[in-house]
């Protein structure tokens, strides 16, 4: 074994000796989310309350652990309770007042509080949970679950004893496993069995569940990537349809603890790379894996790396992690940085080694203070243990990472603007080519990838290009993280294999549309993307397919619009955003977005004419084809796609001066139904512009010319005598 691996193993033992593991087994762990969203929901106070109760109880076998965001934002704060030999229990919306009950009943009394459980997946506790992998890669045979149920009946094991789940791809399908037909995980024993035939499954059943022995013949000893995740969260339907690569450690490990990360196979990929000493092989692996940039453009990552090496012989090269996540409604990168910062450090270090860079920068939004703190901590801890710095792990490779803060400019997500910003300038893009891979930061070749891309790197190195390229579609490999928001029940973060349909994301994972409303459109790609209408809901997540549907992958924002959302207002919202974020350098983006917004404003306030639609289209195409950078080139997408799919709604606004969803304030008319009006004068008193006429006990009228559509009268009327149209 080489010196590098020696050093790494020494470090692993030092940070996480087996004895600690044993200790952990015996302790009760209370895991509390500690990402920005969790904190906003009150997790700090919850933690303090638990600490208080632990102290009061005098127990030393109860410990608190912090972790990142699982992605289940609408249910936060989330608290997990891990009792030895039990299935982990997750509680949702644990506010301070619920802490004593959980502590008393579950932790001290060993009886979980079923009413508070996340997603109310169950109202009872199982002794076992069995998860069958049901992804297309594993070619699951339906009959396996049937056989399993039959066996349970045979042995009189009730449904209360064992819970059967169908999980998404668990990332176990490495080449070696591929020929196996079935994979199942059994908790809380935490073993994975693979089997080919019904007979084998029966054999496993008999041994494991009846004789309570591990079936050594069929056990897989490979520790797979998302095992911990599935162990903790596999019983929650929100999670088990997901495939977690980027977010593999989010919500599992303590993001501030290097030992925790290393225990989760962290830095193994890096030490293998350094040990092998073949940077070109790394680039080959990444190329073969089919990984494409997750920041929106989808440029093949391996190719980008290769170009950084070959296009410019300059020995000074840089890597940059683009963490300037600015799409409104997208927070994938924040979550990854807060939940698993070490994987970014490791990914960047591997990338730097592959392209022979000596310095890296994380360019991160200043609006993410916790993410900054976490990545800073990760860099410092890695440096302390020589995972960064001079001669990493005793190799001849030296590399360090510096953090640079953004300051609120969406355009700095564009790579040349980002470079200018790191250089301390106004973040305005420049013409490409030359691309940063040739002329980048301070003129040196620079490789820029976003957070999600870097986070994928260690996984690909560890499990191989074949494994990764088997997940996803022909042109888009691996998984994609989306921030699900808007009118969907389960808002939050989801990571799904490429090729998953929007329907699956929205209905199976997202839980569908709340309030019995119907889905109108899905907006992906944020201000650069477009709206996909309900009839294309079976579109799959894939760079090319989304583009063909008039949208784009983007960085991962996914906003669900229901029937009550006005499509024109939505387009206007995004355009307002791009107009504000336009850097002002090139004319079409600077002036064009401004004029397009004016037209949209006219449409939403009732002053537009039909010709305006043609003008809007003409401007959109102009801005798209002539803008300097991606921001301008994609700024018209929200308009073009909505015009294409919802032209009728635009026309109703213009021709009928009416907003079908009553979202456009200026197009709303309030009228009083004389038959229902009692003449109580309440609306008259509330009206801020005194435009309601009427005498006591006589029906009132609204003078439309003066009405400012504030809706105060509508809200005030106790007799439903005011109609809003």
């Amino acid at each position, binding site marked *: 074994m080489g010196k590098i691996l020696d050093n790494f193993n020494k470090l692993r033992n030092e940070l996480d000796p087996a004895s600690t593991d044993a200790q952990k087994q015996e302790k009760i762990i209370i895991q509390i989310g500690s990402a920005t969203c969790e904190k*906003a929901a009150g997790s700090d106070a919850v933690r303090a309350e638990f600490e208080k109760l632990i102290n009061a109880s005098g127990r030393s076998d109860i410990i608190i652990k912090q972790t990142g965001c699982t992605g289940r934002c609408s249910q936060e704060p989330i608290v997990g309770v891990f009792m030895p030999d039990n299935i982990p229990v997750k509680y949702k919306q644990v506010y301070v007042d619920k802490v004593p009950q959980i502590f008393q009943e579950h932790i001290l009394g060993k009886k979980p509080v079923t009413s508070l459980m996340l997603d109310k997946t169950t109202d009872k506790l199982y002794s076992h949970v069995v998860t069958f992998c049901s992804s297309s890669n594993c070619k699951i045979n339906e009959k396996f679950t049937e056989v399993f149920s039959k066996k349970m009946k045979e042995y009189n094991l009730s449904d209360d004893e064992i819970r059967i789940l169908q999980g998404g791809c668990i990332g176990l399908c490495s080449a070696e496993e591929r020929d196996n037909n079935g994979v199942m995980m059994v908790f809380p024993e935490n073993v994975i069995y693979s089997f080919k035939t019904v007979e084998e499954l029966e054999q496993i059943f008999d041994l494991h569940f009846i004789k309570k022995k591990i079936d050594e013949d069929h056990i897989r000893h490979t520790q797979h990537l998302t095992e911990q995740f599935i162990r903790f969260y596999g019983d929650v339907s929100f999670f088990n349809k997901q495939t977690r690569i980027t977010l593999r450690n989010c919500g599992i490990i303590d993001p501030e603890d290097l030992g925790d990360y290393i225990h989760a196979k962290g830095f193994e990929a890096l030490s293998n790379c350094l040990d092998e000493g073949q940077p070109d092989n790394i680039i080959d692996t990444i190329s073969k894996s089919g990984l494409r940039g997750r920041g929106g453009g989808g440029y093949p990552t391996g190719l980008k790396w290769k170009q950084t090496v070959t296009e410019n012989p300059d020995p000074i090269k840089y890597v940059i992690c683009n963490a300037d996540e600015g799409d409104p409604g997208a927070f994938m990168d924040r979550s990854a940085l807060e939940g698993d910062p070490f994987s970014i450090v490791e990914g960047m270090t591997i990338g730097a080694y592959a392209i022979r860079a000596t310095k890296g920068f994380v360019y991160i939004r200043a609006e993410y203070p916790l993410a900054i703190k976490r990545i800073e901590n990760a860099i410092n801890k890695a440096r302390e243990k020589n995972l960064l710095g001079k001669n990493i792990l005793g190799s001849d490779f030296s590399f360090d990472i510096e953090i640079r803060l953004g300051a609120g*400019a969406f355009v700095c997500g564009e790579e040349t603007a980002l470079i200018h910003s790191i250089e301390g300038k*106004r973040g*305005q893009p420049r013409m490409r080519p030359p691309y940063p891979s040739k002329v980048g930061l301070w003129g040196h070749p620079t490789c820029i990838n976003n957070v999600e891309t870097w986070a994928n790197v260690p996984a690909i190195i560890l499990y191989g290009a074949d494994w990764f390229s088997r997940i996803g579609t022909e042109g888009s490999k691996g998984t994609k993280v989306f921030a699900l928001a*808007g009118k969907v029940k389960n808002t939050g973060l989801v990571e799904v294999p490429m090729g998953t349909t929007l329907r699956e994301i929205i209905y199976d994972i997202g839980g569908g549309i709340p309030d019995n409303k119907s889905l109108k459109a899905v907006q992906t790609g944020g201000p650069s993307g477009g709206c996909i209408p309900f009839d294309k809901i079976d579109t799959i997540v894939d760079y090319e397919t989304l583009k063909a549907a008039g949208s784009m992958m983007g960085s991962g924002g996914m906003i669900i619009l229901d029937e009550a959302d006005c499509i024109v207002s939505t387009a206007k919202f995004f355009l307002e955003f791009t107009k504000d974020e336009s*850097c002002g350098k090139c004319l079409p983006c600077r002036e064009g977005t401004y004029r397009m917004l004016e037209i949209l404003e006219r449409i939403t306030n009732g002053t537009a004419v039909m010709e305006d639609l043609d003008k809007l289209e003409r401007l959109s195409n102009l801005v798209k084809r002539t803008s300097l950078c991606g921001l301008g080139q994609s700024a018209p997408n929200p308009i073009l796609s909505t015009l294409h799919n919802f032209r009728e709604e635009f026309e109703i606004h213009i021709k009928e001066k009416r907003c079908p969803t009553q979202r456009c304030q200026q197009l709303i008319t309030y009228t009083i139904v004389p038959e229902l009006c009692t003449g109580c004068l309440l609306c008259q008193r509330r009206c801020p512009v005194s435009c309601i006429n009427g005498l006591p006990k006589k029906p009132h009228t609204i003078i439309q010319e003066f009405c400012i559509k504030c809706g105060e009268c509508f*809200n005030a009327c106790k007799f439903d005598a005011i109609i809003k149209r």
Partner: protein
Amino acid sequence: MFEEDYNLDKEITDYIDWCKEQEHPESYLIAILHKIQEKYGYLSQENMYEVAQKLRVPTSFVSGVATFYHYFRLKPRGYFHISICLGTACFVKGADLVLKAFQNELGIEIGETTSDGVFSIEGARCIGVCALAPVLMINDAVYGNVKPTQVSELLSSLRAKYNQEKKVSA
């Protein structure tokens, strides 16, 4: 703007000195501005002028950078700084109406401070609490599910709090 007027905190001037020893000192401009804003709440002309002189970056570039990035404030904030999230999720749930209510109540626009210095409002990009949309932050506290009709009451209670805190400190 004379040298004797220089009043940046030593912690910051030390940082500038450190920056000057680095390979690309001018690249730390944004970082320095962040530090100043963190310390003083906003970027004053005097402070930016001093940074320009000490870092040897043209003054016009310093103010050009400071005005380009929306995170930087060029005016002092109010006693209560209200930032209203205008991210997509909040927008879909009516954040624009909440903002309008604040603007109407306070008579100020985004980025402005009331003349008495008590309130300032700011439109924030997504603050990542989409589940509670529409969301706003008043100083460091997050308020979720805000309705436009609650704005008036919220402001009155803040003003009362301000009056009380002023009295206590007096």
